[in-house]
């Protein structure tokens, strides 16, 4: 049976060249980078090279990039670290309702500890309105955290414009660019952000490695306390192979950037067009214009996402859903909720994300099977167009 993975926003396979680059650092060049002997310096050097590559992908200086264990840790560090460092200045943080849980839950943790959090609304395409941000800033505001590209609906924010607003008010700006990396051209200097979170496993690098860009001069407290790694800002023996892999993945992403974006966009558009042509009562969630190149988040009315997901899985197709049934907390997607999608329709949403290895044949196969699955589930369903919801 054909296997079609369409969940590249969840995670990506490590590319062959990336794994190849990592291999020597497991058992041969395994020295602790903090060690003074040759075996240690070799590891240190490998990290330096990787840091250069990852920095280059986002237009940062090498010494502004700090490796973390994940995008989650980068988000946590940015938010909790800035909140702590600037607590004498204020206790107000602005974010949005559509952030990743790493940002949302860090903010909720801070809310329990005396900070005030404003969750900005978004329009029905998932975009933050500049005036909403402008109006939300008070003289107690110390941090604004707005994600670059949303992980569920793929909406891209105008980070440059939002940064312009915070800069004029002297407020620190963090962006979670985990989904943006490799999928949108990023230059931290042009954007003007102070902090940016990224993660390796979304760009065909290994899981368990991320990074936080911290603009030179930004005051931020440490999050991980211990040894003097990462220029004394992030403790813990370095995930040597993870860092090397992230470096190589970043290098490939940079080389391949335009190709990747063009190819994935085309396939994605073909997919959406096909779905709309062949299946009734569907709609696209998010923005058509400001959208992650590989993302198609579609609601199939009158049926539920987990059931679709399982049927598709049995047919070799991997996708994800915003249905409550699929989430650990049994609540429907907070992102689709923020976009104003009615709850019963959130349950019927599927996210397809296309990646480098996806082919047109894959898409055709998925369309064929999707048509069948949707028909089958609609036949079973207790709701329908005729009956209504």
């Amino acid at each position, binding site marked *: 049976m054909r296997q079609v993975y369409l969940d590249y926003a969840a995670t990506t396979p490590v590319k062959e060249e990336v794994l190849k680059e990592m291999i020597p650092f497991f058992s041969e060049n395994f020295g602790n980078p903090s060690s003074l002997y040759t075996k240690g310096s070799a590891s240190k050097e490998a990290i330096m090279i990787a840091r250069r590559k990852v920095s280059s992908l986002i237009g940062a200086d090498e010494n502004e990039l700090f490796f973390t264990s994940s995008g989650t840790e980068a988000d946590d560090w940015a938010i909790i670290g800035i909140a702590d460092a600037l607590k004498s200045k204020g206790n107000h943080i602005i974010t949005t309702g559509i952030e990743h849980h790493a940002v949302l839950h860090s903010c909720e943790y801070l809310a329990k500890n005396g900070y005030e959090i404003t969750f900005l609304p978004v329009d029905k395409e998932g975009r933050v309105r500049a005036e909403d941000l402008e109006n939300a800033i008070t003289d107690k505001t110390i941090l604004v955290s707005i994600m670059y590209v949303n992980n569920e609906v793929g909406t891209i924010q105008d980070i440059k414009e939002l940064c312009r607003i915070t800069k004029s008010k002297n407020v620190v700006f963090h962006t979670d660019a985990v989904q943006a990396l490799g999928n949108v051209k990023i230059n931290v200097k042009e954007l003007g952000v102070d902090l940016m979170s990224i993660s390796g496993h979304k760009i065909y690098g290994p899981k368990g490695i991320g990074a936080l860009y911290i603009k030179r001069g930004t005051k931020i407290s440490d999050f991980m306390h211990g040894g003097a790694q990462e220029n004394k800002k992030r403790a813990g023996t370095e995930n040597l192979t993870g860092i090397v892999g992230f470096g190589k993945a970043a290098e490939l992403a940079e080389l391949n950037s335009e190709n990747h974006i063009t190819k994935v966009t085309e396939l994605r558009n073909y997919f959406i067009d096909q779905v709309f042509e062949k299946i009734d009562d569907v709609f696209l969630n998010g923005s058509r214009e400001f959208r992650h190149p590989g993302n198609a988040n579609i609601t199939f009315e009158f049926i539920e996402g987990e059931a679709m997901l399982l049927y598709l899985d049995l047919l070799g197709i991997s996708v994800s859903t915003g249905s409550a049934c699929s989430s650990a907390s049994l609540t429907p997607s907070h992102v689709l909720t923020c976009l104003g999608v009615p709850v019963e329709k959130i349950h019927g949403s599927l996210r397809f994300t296309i990646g480098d290895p996806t082919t047109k044949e894959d898409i055709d196969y998925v369309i064929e099977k999707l048509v069948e699955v949707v028909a089958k589930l609609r036949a079973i369903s*207790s709701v329908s167009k005729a009956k209504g919801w």
Partner: protein
Amino acid sequence: MGMYNDKVMDHFMNPHNIGELENPDGIGTYGSPVCGDMMQISIRVQDEIITDAKFKTFGCGSAIASSSVATDMIIGKTIDQALAITNKQIIDELGGLPAVKIHCSVLADHAIKAAIYDFAQKNGKIYAGLEGFDPNEDDEENDTCDTEE
């Protein structure tokens, strides 16, 4: 698949008793699309015995599997036997459900009661097993989308 056992998957992939009976003797719906699960069961009754049952379900894999197995379970049973079926029995029949999916079995057990309630209303019958069961009252409860029981 991991999450569901083979029995659940089998009922999910090839559900029994799909559809809606024509001119059913009783029909009931339980759950709500807002909560992600809504189950409709229709039954045919002859001499207090459920001779046929069909379901239509909007919901996740375990809701569909629960509907399938629940309709299987009531066919051939007396009304009283059907009313005595607990969500625990539905789960057992399915060989177990993940903890977070227990509410789906509750849904099925309630949908059975709702269908029998309809039958009782239409025929002026009273069943001990329906005591305290009010599909409308429960509807309200549904709005909170109880996920655990």
